[in-house]
């Protein structure tokens, strides 16, 4: 507790000294992040392999590449982002200047997650730095190799008077949360997010909460067989391709019309085999389950006999290797846990409906997810999904790729989160937008001041309507 107090005190001092405010400092730190991930690429591959059995291609695509892209984007834009933005001021206040000036919050806290332990820590870090803050990162202890990596390597590259990594588990997180932060950025589960926000409320600390939810994929009928193949291939990629289902925007379940279920299952199986071979465990291309807790959690989802009965592919488990085979279920009972909790694993329920339009009600009867995926060429259906469902984001005809789109805000709504980031939104999420207005001493608007009379009342009414002609007439004594 004292140590945190100490560290926090030093960070506050550093921030107050103004050290983190200059463009030069911010750019240098971002360049240092770039250098770090370049120099230590192999170490990062190794850490992800250790924590999650992630293949280097996945690690590059989802962790290193993401950080590199964010860092380059921030480097090119930080100066522009920092600049005050001019805003129009009504003529009534002439001469006046109005602008919005972004300023850093101060000392911010970033909670990393275990599924993308490098990018979910460093991507927000880049934003916090571009915005000029001092930062504490608390990596997830459930990915220990990556946590150690961050704790050991970051101080070698970054300015450790302003950027610190604090390791620990639930106890340490609780301790951190008792202190006053200027902003907290959290990625994780809704249960813990609620605790984070409750702690933040004590100090009126603003929060960004990146959560998850049951992200559905709606598969409409696609007349072209090659489109169908691409769609299902992307569904396979969107389920098992990113950390083996352990991703906030991973596809949780699929909705499809009953008549297409067999085709869907067939093509799913085909692509699972193509991607992972006969024995996915040996493919090296699929991540394993993070730890025993989550393994047991997933195992329990399959224990319900009705759920077990609905398995049409896969289902094998290896506790020692923390391996669960890519598993497809057909219409498990809707009241089972697997259809009410975020799965966060390699189990894919397929829910059939009579008419694909029923998907909308199905999704709406559940908490708002972080993403909705819809594979369809029907423009009317697309519009219906957009207008009638609510989610962090919607992607048509693909999955996961919205994550790479820097111009789209990435964040949830309702149970899937508060706030957003990526691209400039990360800079914004760590900034306070300060209004700055300047006026001159002249001219003076006499009617602003008491004692009040009818003339002043008339003037002010016209002023509020910005009725300049009326004001002129009033001044010339022509308005009644």
């Amino acid at each position, binding site marked *: 507790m004292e140590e945190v107090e100490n560290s926090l005190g030093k960070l506050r001092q550093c921030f107050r000294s103004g050290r983190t405010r200059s463009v030069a400092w911010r750019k240098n730190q971002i360049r240092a992040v770039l250098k770090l991930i370049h120099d230590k690429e192999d170490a990062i591959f190794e850490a992800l392999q250790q924590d999650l059995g992630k*293949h*280097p*291609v*996945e690690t*590059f*695509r989802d962790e290193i*590449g993401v950080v*590199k*892209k964010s860092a380059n984007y921030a480097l090119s834009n930080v100066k522009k982002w920092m600049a005050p933005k001019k*805003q*129009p001021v*009504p003529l009534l*206040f002439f001469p006046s200047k*109005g602008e919005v000036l972004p300023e850093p919050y101060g000392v911010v806290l970033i909670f990393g997650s275990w599924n993308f332990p490098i990018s979910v820590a460093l991507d927000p870090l880049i934003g916090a730095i571009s915005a000029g803050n001092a930062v504490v990162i608390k990596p997830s202890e459930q990915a220990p190799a990556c946590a150690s990596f961050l704790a050991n390597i970051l101080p070698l590259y970054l300015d450790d008077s302003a950027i610190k990594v604090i390791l620990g588990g639930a106890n340490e997180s609780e301790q951190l949360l008792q202190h006053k932060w200027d902003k907290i950025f959290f990625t994780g589960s809704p249960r813990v997010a*609620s605790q984070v*926000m*409750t702690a933040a*409320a004590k100090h*009126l*600390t603003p929060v960004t909460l990146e959560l998850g939810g049951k992200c559905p994929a709606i598969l409409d009928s696609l007349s*072209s067989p*090659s489109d169908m193949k*691409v769609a299902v*291939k*992307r569904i396979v*990629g969107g389920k098992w*391709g990113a950390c083996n289902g352990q991703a906030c925007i991973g596809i949780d379940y699929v909705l499809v019309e009953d008549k297409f279920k067999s085709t869907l299952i067939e093509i799913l199986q085909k692509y699972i085999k193509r*991607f992972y071979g006969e024995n996915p465990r040996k493919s090296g*291309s699929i991540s394993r389950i993070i730890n025993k807790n989550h393994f047991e959690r997933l195992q329990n989802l399959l224990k319900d006999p009705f759920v077990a009965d609905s398995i049409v592919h896969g289902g094998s488990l290896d506790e020692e290797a923390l391996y669960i085979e890519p598993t497809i279920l057909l219409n498990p009972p809707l009241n089972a846990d697997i259809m009410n909790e975020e799965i966060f694993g390699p189990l894919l329920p397929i829910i059939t409906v009579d008419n694909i339009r029923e998907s909308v009600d199905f999704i709406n009867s559940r908490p708002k997810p972080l993403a909705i995926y819809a594979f369809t060429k029907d423009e009317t259906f697309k519009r219906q999904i*957009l207008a009638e469902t*609510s*989610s962090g*984001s*919607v992607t*048509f005809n*693909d999955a996961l*790729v*919205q994550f*790479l*789109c820097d*111009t*789209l*805000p990435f964040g949830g709504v*309702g149970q899937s989160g508060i*706030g957003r980031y990526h691209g400039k939104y990360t800079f914004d999420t760590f900034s*306070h*937008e*300060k*209004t700055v*207005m*300047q*006026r001159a*001493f002249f001219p*003076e608007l006499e009617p602003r*001041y*008491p*004692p*009040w009379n009818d003339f002043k009342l008339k003037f*002010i009414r016209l002023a*509020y309507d910005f009725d300049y002609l009326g004001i002129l007439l009033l001044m010339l004594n022509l308005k009644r």
Partner: protein
Amino acid sequence: MGSVEKQTEVFDSEAASSMVKELRDEFLSGKSRSYEWRVTQLKNILKMSEDREQDIVKALHSDLAKPELESSIYEISMLKNACTLAIKKLKHWMKPEKVKTSLISFPSSAEIVSEPLGVVLVISPWNYPFLLSLDPVVGAIAAGNAVVLKPSEIAPATSSLLAKLVGEYLDNSLIRVVEGAVAETSALLEQKWDKICYTGNSRVGRIVMAAAAKHLTPVLLELGGKCPAVVDSSINLKVAARRIVAGKWGCNNGQTCVAVDYILTTKDVALKLVDALKHELEGFYGKNQLESKDLSCIVNSNHFARLTKLLDEDKVSGKIVHGGERDKAKLKIAPTILLDVPQDSLIMNEEIFGPLLPIFTVEKVESSFDVINSGTKPLAAYLFTDNKKLKEQFVMAVSAGGLLINDTVIHLAVDALPFGGVQESGMGSYHGKFSFDAFSHKKGVLYRSFAGDAPVRYPPYTNGKLTFMKALMSGSILGVLCALIGLSKN
């Protein structure tokens, strides 16, 4: 009609839950999403403000003894402006915003769609009970939400009038008013809302945020703080004084979140400033300022007691250089100026929210910034100066919701400037389009085609794919070529 029954019914958690469910069902029907519904409601608020202006002025006078000009102008006109702007711009605000996409997701197109959050709660304060109730409601409606308004019980006439007017002019299937005090507010706060907007003090702000945290409800908190006005030397002191008076006693007699709370200046300017302030106060409110009809009363005896306690503290009671008179029965305190108050006095550590203006002197004007930064971040900070360098220092060094140089308070009237606090003074902002945004979810939408799939995306992963992946993600020409090869393979 059952309305008498309604008044005696207790509005408890069950009633709140049932009301939220009703509103949510109605919201899910899609009714509030249509442009027509939103514009109709906004036009009705406008009509209501125009038709019933006299009733509103009367209620505000009953609650706060507000001079007619302050009610008409500050409250009603500002609200009407908010409506007019929203009506004018709504179509534009509702349009999806197209955004660029990059090579990585080629071919694709993307946009950001604004959608309503759902059922929102607006809790408003007693000091501008009409404006600060309906201004956020205007934003919530413009964004397509269902709204519950809980006006402050400390301004009972306005609260009751709002309940009546909303009942008469607006669509009650989606817009409701719940009157009451702590019990009713607590019952409301137990429910799951899609957003809560609270305007008031930071103590209750914490309670609201903690309640919201249980349901992961986002919040807009408009709080307050000690808004300082720094006064430099060699300026037009007369104009500065007028603007300070207008921004202190002219704003509900100091009971305003952005009112000038205290002054920071150097010793030599302080004395001249006191004279200038006295002169302007007399010009505005006459010699007997305690009796002036152009000054609001203190809202109730609690706040009256709170303010007199600040004045009577030993450390400061000898520092009064103007005013100090009070009338407990009429809840009036005369405009009061105090000079050279000690930094550790109560009056320099609590938000005053009343007609007391302490002047705190510093050695050099730049030291003011340290004094400001030693406290919590206020909603607004003011500086009167002609010195360009001092202005720049002020803007860089002082963190507040908003800064205004050479005037007070009026930055609120500029729609294009977001109005909100930071840290202790709040989170989030509104006014103008920011109100629409505050009550919207900005949903990212990506459209992809079935063509264009780099095989490098999919397993089995090989070292070769790693090389391609790196090139593709770096956007290099080689990577582009490879991506195109990927396209043609499909």
